[in-house]
C-alpha cells in the first residue's frame, strides 16, 4: 500500500502543540474565570475584579511601573538601536553582541547582581522600592526594546533618507519626517514586548525586596492560595487589556508592507 504524504500533514505537530499548550490552557483559564467553587457559571469574579480596591490598586501600580519602565526602555533603546543601525557592518555585530550577551545569563542571577550593586549604593533597598523595581525591570527588558527597533531601522531603505535630504530636509528633519515614522512598527512591538512583562514579572520585585504587589504577584498569590477562580479572572482581564492594546496599536500604525509586519514578532 502506498502511503500518501501531503505537505499539509507537516502542520499536524504544530497544530497539536497549539491545541495542547495554547488553546487548552486558555480554555481552562476561561472556565475557572467564569465559574465558582461549585463549578457553576458566574460573573462574580469579574465584578469582584473591578470592585476590589486591592485589585484595582495593584492594577494601577503595575501600570505605573510598566509605563515608566516602557518609557525608560524606549528612551534608552531608540538611540542605541539607531546608532547600531548606522554603524559600519563590522563594528555593528560586535556592538549588538554586547547588548545580547547579558541575555545569555539567567535573569535572576543578573537581577541578584543588580541588587547587590543597588544596596551598596542606597544602603537599604527598602527606601526606594519603586525606583529599584523600575531600574531592575528596565535593565532586564532593555534588549527586548532594542532588538525590534534595530530590526526595523536596519531594514529601512537608505534611499528614503537620501530622498528626504535631497528634497531639502536636514538631518534632524529627515529623522523626524521619515526615519521615525517608518520605524514605528519596531517601536510598537518593542512596547508590546516590554509593557506586559513589566506588569507581571514579579520575580524582579521579589529579588529587590519590593513587597508591593503587581499583577503577576497578585495572580500568583491567588493561585498559591488555591483560589483558581479569582486568579484566572485576573489573567483574563490582563489578557483582554493586552489584546485591546494590540488591536489599537495595529490600527494606528500604518503598515503597508507585509514585510514590516515581521517586525511585530
Amino acid at each position, binding site marked *: 500500500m502506498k502511503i500518501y504524504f501531503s505537505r499539509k500533514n507537516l502542520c499536524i505537530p504544530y497544530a497539536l502543540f497549539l491545541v495542547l499548550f495554547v488553546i487548552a490552557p486558555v480554555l481552562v483559564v476561561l472556565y475557572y474565570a467564569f465559574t465558582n467553587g461549585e463549578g457553576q457559571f458566574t460573573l462574580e469574579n469579574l465584578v469582584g475584579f473591578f470592585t476590589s480596591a486591592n485589585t484595582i490598586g495593584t492594577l494601577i501600580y503595575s501600570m505605573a511601573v510598566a509605563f515608566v519602565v516602557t518609557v525608560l526602555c524606549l528612551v534608552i533603546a531608540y538611540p542605541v538601536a539607531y546608532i547600531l543601525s548606522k554603524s559600519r557592518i563590522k563594528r555593528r555585530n560586535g556592538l549588538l553582541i554586547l547588548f545580547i550577551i547579558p541575555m545569555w545569563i539567567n535573569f535572576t542571577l543578573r537581577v541578584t547582581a543588580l541588587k547587590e550593586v543597588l544596596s551598596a549604593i542606597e544602603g537599604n533597598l527598602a527606601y526606594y522600592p519603586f525606583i529599584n523595581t523600575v531600574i531592575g525591570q528596565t535593565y532586564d527588558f532593555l534588549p527586548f526594546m532594542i532588538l525590534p527597533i534595530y530590526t526595523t531601522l536596519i531594514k529601512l531603505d537608505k534611499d528614503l533618507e537620501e*530622498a528626504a535630504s535631497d528634497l531639502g530636509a536636514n538631518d534632524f528633519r529627515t529623522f523626524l519626517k521619515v526615519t521615525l515614522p517608518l520605524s514605528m512598527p519596531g517601536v510598537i512591538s518593542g512596547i508590546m514586548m516590554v509593557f506586559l512583562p513589566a506588569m507581571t514579572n514579579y520575580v524582579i520585585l521579589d529579588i529587590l525586596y519590593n513587597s508591593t504587589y503587581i499583577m503577576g504577584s497578585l495572580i500568583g498569590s491567588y493561585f498559591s492560595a488555591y483560589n483558581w477562580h479569582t486568579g484566572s479572572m485576573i489573567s483574563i482581564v490582563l489578557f483582554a487589556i493586552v489584546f485591546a492594546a494590540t488591536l489599537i496599536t495595529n490600527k494606528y500604525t500604518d503598515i503597508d508592507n507585509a514585510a514590516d509586519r515581521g517586525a511585530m514578532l
Partner: protein
Amino acid sequence: MDNIIELRGIKKCFEGNEPVVEDINLTVKRGEFVTLLGPSGCGKTTTLRMIAGFETPTEGEILLGGEDISKKPPYLRSINTVFQRYALFPHLNVFDNIAFGLKLKKLNKKKIVEKVEKVLDVVDMEGFEKRKISTLSGGQQQRIAIARAIVNEPEILLLDEPLGALDLKMRKEMQLELKLMHESLGITFIYVTHDQEEALTMSDKVVVMANGHIQQIGTPEEIYNEPNNAFVADFIGESNIFNGVMAEPLKARFCDAVFECLDNYPKNTHVDVVVRPEDIVIVPEDEGQIKGEVISVIFKGIHYEITVQCGKNEIVIQRTKSAEVGSVVGMYIEPDGIHCMPCGTLVNCYEGIISKNNTVEFGDGVFECDVTMLYPGSQIDENGNLMTGGGEYIDLTGVRVKVEVPVDMPVMSDDENEGGACGNINSLIYKGDHYNYLIKTKSGFEYVLNDEYLWNENDYVSIVIPKEAIRLSFLESEE
C-alpha cells in the same frame, strides 16, 4: 548658454580602496540633457551621487553656477534626484510625497496645493492626490517620483536609471515623455543609464564611461560615428573592430588589405579599426577590396545580419538583402566608413621586485622570469645563482625592476594555481579574430591580453605568462 555645473578633476575612493571614478572633468550647459552612459560598475552612479551630494569627492571640485558645492550636504543644493527605485515615502500619500519638499520650504498651503496640482498635470497623474504609494503601479510610481523632484523647480534634475524597472513599451513611452518634459520645463537633466539606445535617443550630450574614467564626451552622432576608442565603438551599437596598422597616412592595412581612410596617422602606427556593419557593402567576388565566405545569415526584422569569414577575421555585415550561406562575396568599404584610432595597450608595464629563485613579483602575483636579460652575457649556474660574464655572483633579491609584458603573450586559465596572478575579467572586446581582455586583480592591477577564445565578463581567471614573455629592465633611478 552658460555652464550650470562643472566637475573638475573628480576622484572618488571608498575607504582607501581603488578609486571608483578618477579624473572626471565634465561641463554641463544650462538646459542641456546630458547622459552618463556606461556598463554597470563604471562609476556613472557614483558620479551622479556626488553631484546630488550623497557622496563627497575624494579629490576635485563640483562647481554649481561657479560656486564649489562638493562639500555641501544634499539639502542645501538646488538639485533634485529621481531615484532608481523611486524611493517614495511609503507612509505618505501621493500629495504628501510631492509636497514634501514644498512643506520644508514653508510655503503656504494654498500655494502648495496649487503647485502639486500643476505638477500632477505635467506627469499626467491628476486625481491621484489621496492615493497610497503601495497602490500605484511601477509606471505610476515613476511619474510621482519625477513629480516630487520637479515640483521643487531645481536647477538640475538628476535621474538614476529611472526607466530601468519598467517594461519595454512603457520605457519607450516614458523616454518620449521625459524628452518632452525636458523641453517644456527648461531644467537641466543629468541622466544615468546603461542602455545605449536610450542615451542616443534622449540626450543632447552623451558621456561614455568605463572603469571609472570618461571615455568620450560628445553628441549622440559624434559618439556613434566617431568613437574615440575600441571600447566606445564596441559599447555603442554594433561594430567590427580589427587590429590594423597604418600603411601610410590616410591608408590603413587590416584584414590583409589596404583601405583608404580619412584618418591621418603616421606610417606604421598600430590602430584599432572600427567599421559599422551597415557600412560594408557586399559586391560581386572580384569587385571588392576583400573577399570571404558567407558563414551565417540571420534575419533581424529590418535587416539581415550576415557573417563573412575573411581569412582569420569574422566580419559582420547588415543589409536589407539576404545572401547565400557558403557563397564567396566581395566586400567594399567607403573611406568614411572606416574609422581608425590609436590602439589601446600593446604592452603591459609594471614595476616589480625580483624575489628569490629568479622570480619577479608584480601586479599582485609572482612570475618566473629570466633574470639574465638584466646583465648581458650573464648566466645562471647549477645552484640557481646569477653569474655575470665576468664570473661575478650577483644577488638580485629585492631589486626593483621595470616589467613589460606584450598583450599577445599571456594566456588565461581557470586553474587558479596555474598562473602567477588571478583576477576578474573586467571587459572584453571582440576584434575580428580574437578577443581583447582587461583583467583586474583584487588590489586593482590591470592586465591587458589577447586571447582567441571567448571568456565571460567577471570570470575569475589566472594569468599565465611564459617566462620568455616577461621583459625586464632596470628602473631608470636604479642605474
